[in-house]
């Protein structure tokens, strides 16, 4: 593994009893890089993130994350912030937004120990970073979809992670909130020097932020710097000609014939 690599997959295969989720996946992501992961439904995007977290064990190949391998991945989980793809937070669960964000530090606090004042300060800073300071006392499940998504990002940030994993964080919010969340993630990524893996169905929303792009469909169909992947030749091969690359005001947009760009 090169010195600056934060995540490295070497021929990783993940199999379930009746299907193969990932097959021979290899790539390397340097520290501080922003990777956008695209691909159709069921292409293994979430599974890839779960391998990074050590929640899925490869049946073959090797995943190295922050220099940890195999069962050692569990020990680096607390250095990884995870914003899962999700439904809304259960509005019936009696927990405030502050307490929900505080759960982000539980892993680093350790079993049987209580969070300290410094941990609470980190949570307040994380809520401030996502603009939720005023909502800290509200029931987490009563926040709007966009606020809940910000809350989940705050929970991940409270861990003070080195790697940030986001699984379709804008899938359940309106267009303006989507833009605000992407800008927030980009800002935090830059300010904190995070290594970010961002799974999305809409590559256009994160295009300006990306260092690298991966097109995943069980195996890596394309991976590299944006200009290497997001060019007409590669995209036409991936989408079988159903793609148009538009450039407007210095910004590229990928327009695909179906809904999954």
């Amino acid at each position, binding site marked *: 593994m090169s010195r600056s690599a934060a995540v490295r997959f070497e021929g990783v295969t993940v199999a379930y009893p009746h299907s193969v989720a990932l097959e021979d996946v290899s790539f390397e992501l340097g520290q501080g890089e922003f990777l956008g992961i695209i691909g159709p439904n069921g292409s293994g995007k979430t599974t890839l993130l779960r391998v990074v977290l050590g929640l899925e064990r490869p049946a073959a190949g090797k995943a190295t994350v922050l220099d940890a391998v195999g069962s050692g991945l569990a020990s680096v989980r607390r250095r990884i912030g995870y914003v899962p793809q999700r439904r809304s*937070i259960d509005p019936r669960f009696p927990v405030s937004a502050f307490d929900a964000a505080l759960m982000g530090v539980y892993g680093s606090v350790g079993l049987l120990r209580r969070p300290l004042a410094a941990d609470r300060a980190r949570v307040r800073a994380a809520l401030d970073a996502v603009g939720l300071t005023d909502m800290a006392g509200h*029931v987490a499940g009563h926040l709007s979809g966009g606020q809940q998504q910000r809350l989940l990002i705050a929970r991940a940030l409270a861990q003070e992670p080195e790697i940030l994993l986001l699984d379709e964080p804008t899938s359940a919010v309106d267009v303006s909130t989507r833009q605000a969340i992407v800008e927030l993630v980009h800002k935090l990524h830059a300010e904190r020097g995070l290594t970010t893996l961002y799974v999305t169905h809409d590559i256009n929303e994160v295009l300006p932020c990306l260092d690298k792009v991966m097109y995943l469909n069980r195996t890596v169909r394309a991976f590299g710097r944006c200009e290497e992947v997001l060019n007409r030749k590669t995209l036409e091969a991936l989408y079988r000609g159903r793609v148009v690359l538009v450039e407007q005001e210095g910004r590229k947009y990928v327009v695909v014939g179906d809904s999954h760009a």
Partner: protein
Amino acid sequence: MLDFLQYSFMQRALAGSLVVGLTCSIIGVFVVLRGMAFAGSGLAHAAFGGVALGFLLNLNPLLTAVLFCLGTAGLIQVAGKRAQLRLDASIGIFFAFTMALGVVFIGLMKRYDARIYGYLFGNVLGITEGNLVTMVALGAVVIGAIGLLYKELKFLSFDEEMAQASGLPTTALSALLLGLLALTVVLALKAVGIILLQALLVIPAATAYQLTNRYGMMFFLSGLCGVAACAVGLVVSYYLEVPSGAAIVIVATALFGLAMLFSPKRRKCRVCGPDSV
């Protein structure tokens, strides 16, 4: 009013009821928030198999009930994982199986023993000093474990997937919670019985849920409701000369009805304030 306390059996009954009320209502918060009501019912029926085995082998029925309940809790967890079943389906299997074993054990007994049926509806007035010591010890284990693992169980109940992703041992915590529920079932058996026990696992926590949006406060209010229902129910049963287990459940249900009618959640309140973890 308190003249009934001159009898030692009533003193033990009151002390036992308070231990049962407090322990059931504290673990009941998880039963309500995690949707584990069926688990409580399933383990209560497993306890019946254990009690029957105790009578068959002439052993302490509470001891065999503890072993039976913990074994069943383990089987529910393991079989559910291996057979890839939802928890309720796994509970349904062992609910019926352990009940069937109880019926078989009773059938194998050489003579009829009416004491077994006391465990179906409970007999709080029959709590012995030995029973009381066992109940206090089990209650201390259950409440102590919940206190020690307060934040871990909170995260597990709120978002199990994220708790796992954060590095918490969620499988072990889920198994432990089921084990604590099994111990609670056993400690409450003698007082309220298998059939009415479910009520104490659900009603005080459901009552507390009507009154607060704060997780920590829910434990306090649930404990208060559980203790109040048991104490008032016991006194009512003494003066009205009705079965105590049933009186306790009726009082608990009345408290729930009042809480539901006057719940501040119906009137206001999206703000709950952070818990003091």
